[in-house]
């Protein structure tokens, strides 16, 4: 039964491959996202760029907003909960959202423990900066991993750092002799059985997407070329001057990530991208990626 449930959870993630999951805060935005070709939408209270600017506690989106979004689109609807907030997750499961993102973008509810995601029938996606973090979340029951990047920054540098780290660490693991895997497991802080599985198969046991700072079609193509299987775009779309056109362009670039002629087409006449932040200018305490472990 557990094995079947895991297959259904990762099965939906398989369906989302090669696509774009877009952050939306209203039903109108969700409709724009669907019309642009999004494979799913992520419902949240405020986009990360606004959370960063306005501060305060960021929580699960209002139920009414999520319900409106679920009514107005036919694609899967995801929603975010705070790290460790079991009750928010229970509420979203009762609401029957299609995926839950236990997300560092919201203010953590628990600074030590993530949600035991095995206890849920609804699948979870979690952020990771490296292989160890990805495997800890998978061990807790996550059915999909995304890079954390640095949400709301409009700067792809952290997403690049994280996808490169995960891909490199998987390759390293695959090249190690069996007897070194226990020490490696200790070093990664990840369960031995999962470490062995990754070493044997050469990939994560769940799909591997990218998120956090993707703002342009070129950004989406870059993380896809580095090994991401789909992209999440947050503030990048609805903080730009022409969200509809940008959304379409990022969808196109994600599919044709390895075809520069199409990327050129997708990059033309886009209006202005969101302004973006230099990561070095963000105070250490204001970084979102260091939430969770």
């Amino acid at each position: 039964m557990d094995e079947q449930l895991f297959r259904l959870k990762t099965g939906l993630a398989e369906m989302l491959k090669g696509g774009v999951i877009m952050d939306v805060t209203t039903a109108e935005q969700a409709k724009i996202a669907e019309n642009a070709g999004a494979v799913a939408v992520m419902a949240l209270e405020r986009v990360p760029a606004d959370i960063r600017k306005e501060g305060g506690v960021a929580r699960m989106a209002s139920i009414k907003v999520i319900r409106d979004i679920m009514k107005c689109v036919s694609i899967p609807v995801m929603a975010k909960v705070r790290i460790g907030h079991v009750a928010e997750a229970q509420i979203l499961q009762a609401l029957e959202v299609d995926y839950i993102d236990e997300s560092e973008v919201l203010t953590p509810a628990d600074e030590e423990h993530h949600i035991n995601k095995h206890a849920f029938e609804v699948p979870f996606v979690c952020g990771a900066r490296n292989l160890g973090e990805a495997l800890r979340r998978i061990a807790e029951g996550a059915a999909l991993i995304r890079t954390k990047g640095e949400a709301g920054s409009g700067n792809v540098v952290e997403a690049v750092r994280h996808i490169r780290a995960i891909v490199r660490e998987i390759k390293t693991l695959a090249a190690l002799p069996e007897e070194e895997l226990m020490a490696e497991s200790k070093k990664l802080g990840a369960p031995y059985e999962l470490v062995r599985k990754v070493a044997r198969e050469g990939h994560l046991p769940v799909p591997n997407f990218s998120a956090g700072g993707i703002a342009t079609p070129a950004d989406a193509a870059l993380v896809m070329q580095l090994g991401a299987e789909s992209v999440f775009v947050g503030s990048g779309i609805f903080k730009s001057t022409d969200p509809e056109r940008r959304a379409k362009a990022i969808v196109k670039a994600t599919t044709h990530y390895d075809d520069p002629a199409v990327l050129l087409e997708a990059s033309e006449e886009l209006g202005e991208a969101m302004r973006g932040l230099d990561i070095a200018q963000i105070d250490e305490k204001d970084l979102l990626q260091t939430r969770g472990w």
Partner: protein
Amino acid sequence: MAVIGILAVQGDFDAHSKAVGAVGERWKLVKKPSDLDGVSGLILPGGESTTFLKHLEEEGLAEPIRQFARTKPVFGTCAGAILLAETVENPAQPSLGLMQITVRRNAYGRQLSSSIRTLTAEPELSEIGPEAGTPMEAVLIRAPVITAAGAQVRTLARLQGDPALVRQGFLLAGTFHPELTTDTRVHRYFCQIAAQVGKSSSVSPAEHK
């Protein structure tokens, strides 16, 4: 040798390529019309049908696929079956309209209603390959249901009475995901159709007159 094309604008094309590889056939990904050159059968994978439609429109792929389907086999799973259908419900949306079937999207409900069930299959499907005679699993992910089928449509497998895998000529549509199992029968069956059609079409058109 035959090459199976797999539409790769979005969706679980990766799982399909592994499934085609598992029955010993070659495959290539199809993202634009010219990718159809040299392809002997086309798979439309699972994914989001609304997203597929945007890409087909954007890439000008709809008409080339319709043309392709006149002479060569096409197999659609889940979102792919929705594309093949003449009529789509919940909500109504455009499609390639290649098979006389009506498909209801997300007919079981949302992800929490996704399930793994057992198919009742016709012997021409269940009795092929190394898995012959064993039960056939249907992985249903936010799955559609085929609610009506025309006279030319034959049902190869059912789920609680509803058609789950149907065939019309050399077109095949399934509501479930054989590519998410290790059972090779459905892909084997489709590759056999592609091989047969490939052989008969090597006869020059003049000989048909």
